[in-house]
């Protein structure tokens, strides 16, 4: 199953396991269970009437046959008597008897129960006159019978409110906890694997999103060199229109004269930094627009050449100037004395002719730390900001150094401020200016060049 922790698939591939999905209200237990139901055709879902009605009303994305696999726990169903499960068959509600018929036919091997708390609470207040039915719905008995059912090879997935340890979590073979937290108005979700007996847990915490009503696990992954190279697909940069970032979704828009600050946490892998930066650079170059790069630390000359190769920028090199502190034989590399602010400013400015319309300037401020003082770096940024504003171009300030003075200064002078973080191995970005929700980042190269995939975390 795609976008799903492989550990859970491996676990549910076994027979007679009990998986507990727990979490506080709003953490996505029902959507998680429904996504499982929709993807795994061998599952049946049992819940109280209220929950089932709500699903029928609100979850139109479920496939038609999925709705047929949703049962109301205490409704009457036409079932056939079965000896396969012994006395247990008679000690369970009719919805279960019907489900067990399907198990016997081999159509189903997993029963999803959503949720333990609502079932127990709802049934507690139900008028159950018959002694037999009272026994069936007694929480302790019901729980014991479910465990016996798993002993007979039926998989059980039980959603349960709360994240505390209790009898259910001790008895279950697998426990996962869904979490949700909010930082500055941005929602984050994670799935913690607490235990999965018999399965090697490769990653204990996965990020996930509930975008479009489905639970989708997102993982950042590593960069893969493209199987085949393809021409980078450019978008025209036109007067009177937003400048395409080629990376970020709305509402992050780049406009002529803007200063953009990319604030990368130190733990972001280099490939993520480059794949965020390069599509904008490649697009400017493909549009034939002069592009000057004072490369960040993640971009040494070897890496720059690799990026030129990856994005097939050979034909556009006449528009590119890399300002570098070392003498190089490449025509697109311009030496500058980085120890002298004046020389650096003059070199950058000197690369842009009067005829160069709306140029792109990228300043990797982290590289400058080895040469200039923070005050000089700020002076340089401010100078370039004014220069770019006058020329109607775009200035991108990027780097990975946690130098608060520079960051605060950059935040103050920038029109767009984007933050990049590494959360347990998953890359996340969000706009601080303008404010945006958080997006999970992964990189791919199926198009024939590297690009970023963004998943809004909802």
């Amino acid at each position, binding site marked *: 199953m795609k976008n799903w922790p492989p550990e859970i698939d491996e676990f549910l591939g076994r027979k007679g396991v009990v998986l507990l999905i727990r979490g506080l209200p709003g953490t996505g237990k029902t959507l998680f269970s429904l996504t499982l139901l929709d993807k795994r055709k061998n599952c049946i879902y049992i819940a109280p009437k209220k929950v089932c009605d709500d699903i029928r009303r609100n979850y139109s994305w479920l496939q038609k046959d999925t709705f047929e696999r949703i049962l109301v726990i205490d409704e009457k169903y036409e079932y056939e008597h079965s000896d396969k499960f012994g006395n247990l068959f008679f000690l369970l509600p009719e919805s279960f008897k019907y489900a067990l018929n399907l198990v016997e036919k081999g159509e189903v091997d997993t029963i999803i129960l959503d949720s333990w708390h609502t079932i127990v609470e709802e049934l507690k207040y139900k008028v159950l006159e018959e002694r037999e039915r009272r026994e069936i719905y007694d929480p302790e008995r019901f729980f014991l019978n479910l465990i016996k059912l798993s002993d007979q090879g039926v998989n059980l997935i039980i959603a349960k409110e709360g994240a505390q340890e209790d009898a259910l979590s001790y008895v279950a073979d697998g426990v996962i906890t869904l979490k949700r937290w909010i930082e500055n108005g941005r929602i984050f979700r994670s799935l913690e694997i607490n235990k999965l007996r018999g399965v090697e847990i490769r990653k204990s915490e996965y990020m996930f999103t509930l975008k479009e009503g489905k639970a989708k696990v997102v993982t950042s992954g590593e960069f893969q060199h493209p199987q085949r190279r393809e021409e980078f697909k450019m978008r025209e940069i036109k007067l009177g229109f937003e400048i395409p970032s080629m990376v970020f979704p709305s509402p992050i828009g780049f406009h002529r004269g803007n200063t953009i600050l990319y604030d990368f946490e130190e733990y972001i892998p280099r490939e993520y930094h480059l794949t965020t930066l390069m599509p904008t650079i490649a697009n400017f170059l493909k549009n034939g627009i002069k592009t000057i790069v004072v490369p960040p630390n993640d971009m040494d*000359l*070897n890496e720059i050449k690799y990026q030129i190769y990856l994005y097939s920028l050979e034909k556009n090199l006449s528009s590119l100037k890399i300002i570098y502190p070392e003498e190089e034989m*490449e*025509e697109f590399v311009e030496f500058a004395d980085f120890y002298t602010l004046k020389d650096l400013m003059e070199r950058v400015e000197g690369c842009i002719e009067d005829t160069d319309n709306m140029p792109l300037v990228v300043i990797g401020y982290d590289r400058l730390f080895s040469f200039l003082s923070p005050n000089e770096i700020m002076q340089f940024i401010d100078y370039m900001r004014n220069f770019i504003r006058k020329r109607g171009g775009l200035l991108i300030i990027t780097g990975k150094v946690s130098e608060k003075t520079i960051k605060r200064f950059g935040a103050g002078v920038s029109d767009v401020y984007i933050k990049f973080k590494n959360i347990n191995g998953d890359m996340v970005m969000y706009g601080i200016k303008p404010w945006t929700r958080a997006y999970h980042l992964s990189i791919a190269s199926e198009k024939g060049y590297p690009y970023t995939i963004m998943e809004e975390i909802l």
Partner: protein
Amino acid sequence: MSKKILLVDDSQLFYRFVKDVLKKEDIEIIWAKTMKEAIDKFKKEKPDLTLIDIILADTSGVDVIRKIKEINPDSNIVVISGLDKEYVIKEALDAGATDYMIKNTSISFFRQKVLSYLE
């Protein structure tokens, strides 16, 4: 009869470097900056060795290797590039390059390597 090397690189500085390093040898250096120039000169001059950079003015060196190999599958091609990523090296070798050398290698190593292909 003097040997011929076709150098496919858009860097004039590197052309000068190659000429300088091999000036005492009986070797003619033919310089091409683009794919078209490289193909034309390869067909006309029939060089004993072709040195190709990966980043050219109009295309990648890998594409030039493929074209040259179509014209003469037995030609000796050595990639000489500042780019040392293993994926790119593999692509160049898969395309038909005989060897891959990093540009900022020592002069004596470069000279020795080039001469070994002309023996």
